[in-house]
């Protein structure tokens, strides 16, 4: 089997096979293929390859539709200013990332500090509620939310041992998301992608230096 010298035609053979050419291109291609044995041969090979594809199972559309997230309130008001929609949705995701990072950082500290401190139960539960509600508010995928909440439990033990103000300073990071630029939000989101793709058994080490970190 030799190759036709007309590179443009060879390029478009899969498009001819898959019906993705306009009328004029299709007519030109068909005329060429009819007069060119090499292209006829190559087209036949392409058809044979396509026909040899393994059978795929039938997909239950209704089951998938039932699993889809509901259209978010922010996406329903599509008459709202164009900027508002993507921006606010990005915000939700970014808040989830920050909540995750916050708990991961706190968890890291907890492991260092847990031995020396004794927990103050009442403020621990206050912090737990606040973090859990932040995670719930983000309305993100189950995996992310679960990861946040799961790491909260050990984290609050140490967080409560430090001045509550310090713990709240960490949590207030969530509020600052509104001040982030598009680029910063995007980089947070790409972080979210990798977090969702590969859920780790433990939060990954995050190096963020916080104000009260070095002074102790």
């Amino acid at each position, binding site marked *: 089997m030799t190759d036709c010298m007309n590179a443009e035609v060879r390029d478009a053979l899969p498009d001819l096979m*898959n019906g993705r050419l306009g009328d004029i291109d299709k007519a030109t291609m068909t005329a060429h293929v009819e007069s060119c044995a090499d292209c006829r041969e190559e087209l036949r090979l392409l058809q044979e390859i396509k026909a040899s594809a393994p059978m795929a199972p039938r997909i239950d559309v209704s089951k998938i539709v039932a699993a889809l997230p509901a259209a978010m309130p922010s996406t*329903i008001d599509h008459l709202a200013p164009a900027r508002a929609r993507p921006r606010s949705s990005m915000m939700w995701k970014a808040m989830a990332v920050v909540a995750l990072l916050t708990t991961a950082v706190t968890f890291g500290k907890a492991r260092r500090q847990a031995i020396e401190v004794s927990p103050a139960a009442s403020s621990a539960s206050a912090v737990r509620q606040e973090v859990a509600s932040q995670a719930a508010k983000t309305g993100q995928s189950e995996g992310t939310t679960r990861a946040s909440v799961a790491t909260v439990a050990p984290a609050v033990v140490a967080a409560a041992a430090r001045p509550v103000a310090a713990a709240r300073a960490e949590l207030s990071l969530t509020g600052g998301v509104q001040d982030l630029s598009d680029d910063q939000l995007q980089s947070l989101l790409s972080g979210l992608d990798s977090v969702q793709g590969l859920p780790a058994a433990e939060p990954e080490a995050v190096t963020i230096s916080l104000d009260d970190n070095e002074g102790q």
Partner: protein
Amino acid sequence: MNSSNPSGESDQDLIARWRAGDSRAASLLVGRHADSLARFAVSSGEREDIEELVQDTFVRAFASLDAFRGESSLRTWLFTIERRLMLDRRRTERRQKAMVPIEPADATTEYDALDSLLAEETESRVRKAVESLSPTQHEVFLLRVEQGLSYKEIADVVGTTEGAARVHYHNAMRAVKEFVND
């Protein structure tokens, strides 16, 4: 290119309808693309939980429809998400395999070996040629031949340039011809 449809409504129209709260639009969108995604998964070598993979693809796509600006087709975007999920699966499988030592005398291993031997016998020669391609050539070739994507769309899905996608396709085609003529 794929966003328009003989039945009238484009993917963009349906996305707008879904955003406005019309859940029937979601059914139409899923129905329009689910089979292609399943075929791409199977051709790519996925054998288990195909429906789960396709579902995950749609769930992720719908959860972040705001990020989809319509610069590429929805179809291209769905393939991009599905491909990423397949890579994640393979990475996880590799990690699990590295942790669990394989017992050569294991009964299931023997069964699998026999199974794949039979599968190989019934598999056509052209299919074997396609399976023998390098991973990159393989996915570019499948997207071009079986899914009918343009080089630009393939470049978007696999994260390369249009020119590189074209080169991969033609190298793959040459390799397939050599394999078949051997």
